């Protein structure tokens, strides 16, 4: 659905970056076409370094030559630029519902993400155990949030995917990777039944199927990263 607003639209991403996937999925929800550029994060391009000099990270959305950085800021930008014209909205319309969505997106990035990432990065059993507990506590909070926000519907966004679905759903390939690497279930059906149901449902959506890679890809990347870190420590 090209309508001229697309102009020159590029997304700098990485094939297993959940944060880049948030943006790809947002663009998918809106039906917007763009040029995808795969970045090698071990050899960052001039374009990436000049577009995101502050963080030097993906994703970066470059719209008519202007870079926008930070995945959640980019998703809100996409929602605002490609609004109306019968396109689905990503954030809810109501200010209070938007506040709730933003609160939990912040929680996902500030508390949940560092916890499960910490499981992968832990170097001792004790440290890993602590991060597992933190992750489980965060999942319980998100389970409760889902029951309050979804109000009996299938997604955080209601009948269709919204902001929080993208913010959390982007991690599903990595949860699959952790299952494969550690035998660890981040979202356990026994203790987080609503989220487990949501995860399956989200994985079946067109936008998730189009964007999210198989967990094997994340495992392969994790091994590459491990080897790289080990080589630095020699």
């Amino acid at each position: 659905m090209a309508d001229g607003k697309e102009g020159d639209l590029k997304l700098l991403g990485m094939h297993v970056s959940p944060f880049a996937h948030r943006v790809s999925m947002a663009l998918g929800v809106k039906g917007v076409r763009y040029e995808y550029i795969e970045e090698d994060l071990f050899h960052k391009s001039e374009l990436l370094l000049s577009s995101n000099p502050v963080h030097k990270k993906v994703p970066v959305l470059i719209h008519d030559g202007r870079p926008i950085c930070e995945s959640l800021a980019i998703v809100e930008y996409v929602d605002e630029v490609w609004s109306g014209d019968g396109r689905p909205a990503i954030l809810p319309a109501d200010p209070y519902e938007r506040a709730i969505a933003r609160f939990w997106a912040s929680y996902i990035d500030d508390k949940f993400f560092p916890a499960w990432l910490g499981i992968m990065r832990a170097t001792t059993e004790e440290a890993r155990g602590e991060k597992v507990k933190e992750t489980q506590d965060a999942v319980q909070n998100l389970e409760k949030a889902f029951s309050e926000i979804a109000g009996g519907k299938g997604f955080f966004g209601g009948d269709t995917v919204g902001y929080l679905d993208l913010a959390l759903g982007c991690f599903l390939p990595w949860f699959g990777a952790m299952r494969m690497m550690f035998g660890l279930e981040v979202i356990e059906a026994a203790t987080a039944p609503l989220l487990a149901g949501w995860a399956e449902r989200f994985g079946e959506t067109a936008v998730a199927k189009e964007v999210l890679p198989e967990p094997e890809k994340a495992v392969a990347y994790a091994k590459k990263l491990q080897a790289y870190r080990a080589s630095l420590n020699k």
Partner: protein
Amino acid sequence: MSATVKLIGFFDSPFAHRAEVALRLKGVPYELILEEDLHNKSELLLKSNPIHKKVPVLLHGDRTICESLVILEYVDEAFDGPPLLPVDPYGRAMARFWARFLDDKCSKPFWLSLWTEGEAQKGFVKEIKENLKLLEGQLVKGRKRFFGGDAVGYLDVASCGFAHWLPVFEEVAGVRLVTEEEYPDLCRWAKEYASDETVKQCLPDRAELLAHFTARKDFFVATAKAIMAPN
């Protein structure tokens, strides 16, 4: 919606100030509920913000909103009045990016540059000074009086800590991070922000802040040690 608005805050908190000044900029009448002691939090605070247990918390009728930046956007969207965020999507994305930069990249090195020593402190001082230069760069573009342009906006409010609280912390810690020579635009902005008619109505008294922080210096040093401890 004409329901009552209450704000749970604490006098020394720049995060609570962010929320309070947003309400004032929008012209929203509110009742301020001040926590007396953040080491002995009220039932109301613990019940209203069970996840983080922090101020500020905005109570709007039966709605509860937590996290200062989330509150800023809520106040901007739920009430009429001059916009706090820029109107255009790109401007909004920039404002959100820099506000997150403050909380994600500036808070920690700022805090640790004050209360640590030796080589570690040197590293944090370098980091916060570089990051403050990046923030200042947002003012220099277009020679702006405020981050928001001609009027105080979202990013000015988000940056309030560096306008009013930073000099007090510098004095208590005996550490100088921001000088007029090195940061002419940031210092000019800080003065503009703190003397704005609306802002100054809800800035805590400098002498009170100084006394309060001086009394808590040992606690601050302990928090820095805890952050630095290997885990």
